[in-house]
């Protein structure tokens, strides 16, 4: 079944005892089709990260439903959702790396539980490390490397499972232009293979790349589609046109 994500009247609010209800997302209806490379922008605190975590099945919406490939994953019990999450790759805004592990071990983490033999996992992780210029850092602990390298490690960890759904929260914040281009190529490559790729970012360089097939803005808990800019979509880094 083609990967596709549909949000149907999705709400999210936080309930904390003694404090007023904090509404983060309100009535979000959106469809991310297979092959979509979507970008969501918005002010800090507008709920972008919360929305991504709902799309990735990391938390349940307080209202509405999220469908993946036509299945209501947001309503599934934890056991089923855990298995579905193997089709998801996620880059957290704060990266959530295990700093006591090496770069390679962090990247291998999603594959450990997938009944795959270690040599194959190592082969895959070397491949993805090569794509993100991390080869030299395989044995380094992530606590000792730079912010940009950490970010690329988190992206490599999200990509190693060749996910059908890829969600990246500020994946380019600490990258130089060359690395941004490399990251965009990888994200677009996943979308080209039919994955749903959703990126939340403030990074103007991503906007300028004119690569995204859909652009959204999240403000006051509501998601709105932005009109395409001239030259948006269809363009890939390295394209001659």
């Amino acid at each position: 079944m083609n990967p596709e994500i549909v949000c149907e009247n999705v709400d999210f609010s936080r309930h904390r005892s003694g404090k007023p209800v904090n509404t983060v997302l309100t009535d979000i209806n959106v469809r991310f089709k297979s092959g979509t490379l979507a970008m969501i922008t918005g002010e800090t605190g507008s709920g972008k990260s919360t929305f991504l975590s709902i799309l990735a099945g990391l938390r349940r919406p307080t209202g509405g439903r999220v469908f993946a490939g036509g299945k209501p994953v947001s309503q599934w019990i934890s056991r089923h959702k855990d298995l579905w999450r193997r089709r998801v790759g996620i880059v957290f805004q704060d990266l959530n790396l295990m700093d006591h592990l090496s770069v390679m071990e962090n990247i291998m983490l999603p594959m450990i539980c997938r009944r795959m033999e270690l040599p194959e996992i190592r082969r895959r992780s070397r491949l993805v490390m090569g794509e993100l210029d991390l080869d030299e850092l395989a044995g380094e602990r992530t606590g000792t490397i730079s912010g940009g390298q950490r970010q690329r490690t988190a992206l490599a960890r999200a990509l190693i499972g060749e996910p059908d759904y890829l969600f990246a929260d500020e994946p380019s914040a600490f990258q130089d232009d060359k690395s941004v281009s490399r990251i965009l190529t990888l994200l677009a490559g996943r979308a080209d293979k039919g994955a749903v790729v959703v990126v939340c970012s403030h990074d103007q360089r991503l906007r300028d790349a004119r690569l995204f097939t859909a652009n959204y803005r999240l403000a006051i808990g509501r998601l709105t589609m932005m009109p395409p800019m001239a030259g948006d979509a269809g363009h890939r880094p390295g394209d001659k046109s």
Partner: protein
Amino acid sequence: MSRFVRHPLMAWAVRDLLQHPVELVITAMAILLITLVLSVSLLVPRALSDTARRILSKSPDLVVRGVNSGIPVPLPVREAVASAKAVPGALNIRARWWGIAKSGDRWVTVVGVDDRLAGIFRQWGVAPPLAGEAVTGRGVTSGEKIPVLHLSGAVDLSLTIASLIPKQLDMISHDTVYLTKDDAASVLGIASGYCSDLAVDVFHENEAPALAADLRQAFPWPVHIVGRMDTAGTIQRRYSRLGGYLMLPIIPAMTVLLIMVGIAVSIRRGRRAEAGLLKALGWTGADILQCQLLKTLTVVLPAVILGSGAAYTVVFQPGMNWAAGLWFGWEYTAPPLYLSASSAGLVFTSVNAIVLLPWLAADLFSSINAFTADPMELIEGAMKP
């Protein structure tokens, strides 16, 4: 590459354990010591009980002793045997010559060898003693090679030590000197034609109490009759008391174990964010539990096995003199204790269960959240104070 190394979850569990080497070593050592204490505490009473049962199984069903004003006196052999034979159901009636005498500064048990004992000796490849010879248990000479044994009793005797009792019989012959009937009678001061007591067997041990009453009636002199079950009761009472003392260390050992399990649960709860992250990366609750179980078994199982092995060595290898001294009053080289296979199985299964189950329960308890909670709930929950 071995299957172990190829299995990623197993390799990951080991890798994760090695992240905390100090914690790993302390936990393993503590579990080993707890297992050692628990195993010794459970093994010794069991082994003593089994050993006592084994010794008793070699003893006669009933022993008839002559008494005069409550003091044991020798029995006239011919009349005593005839009286016992008159009681229906009394089997294998045999006179025995035995008592205690001094060898140097210690007391030893002196036994006169009759035809039945001589047969048992031959079965074990030991020649029965001739006049002027002694066959001794290993405790009599403390394992030293002494050619001549001096015994002091009603008379003093110097006897050539012809051979030692085989190790397998040490438990029943440890401090015993076997002599000919005549040499035994002379050192014990038993007149010719008399014996120390009569041993009587019955067809079934349940008949012993009834037969004891009949025997008491059958003798023309006052006799005191002791059954094997009476002796077993006495030994059982001593065993229970000793067993109670030996089980005292179980309480602090269990307390330490439960504190350790509590600390482990608390540490794992502190690592909720890690569980949340693993779930976010595609691990299931079952994967997280399986990994935790592998880690537990990797540490706890070898520690329990080593602790049990160490306990077995402590209890059953030479060096267990303290137990033999407590139980039998032996002051010299103690014979090995005996433990039946079923007792060994019971003890080691119990210890494994006592030590392993709390850890496995802790694994389950600390992994419950990983089964039910959403990843962000675990990650954000761990950040809350």
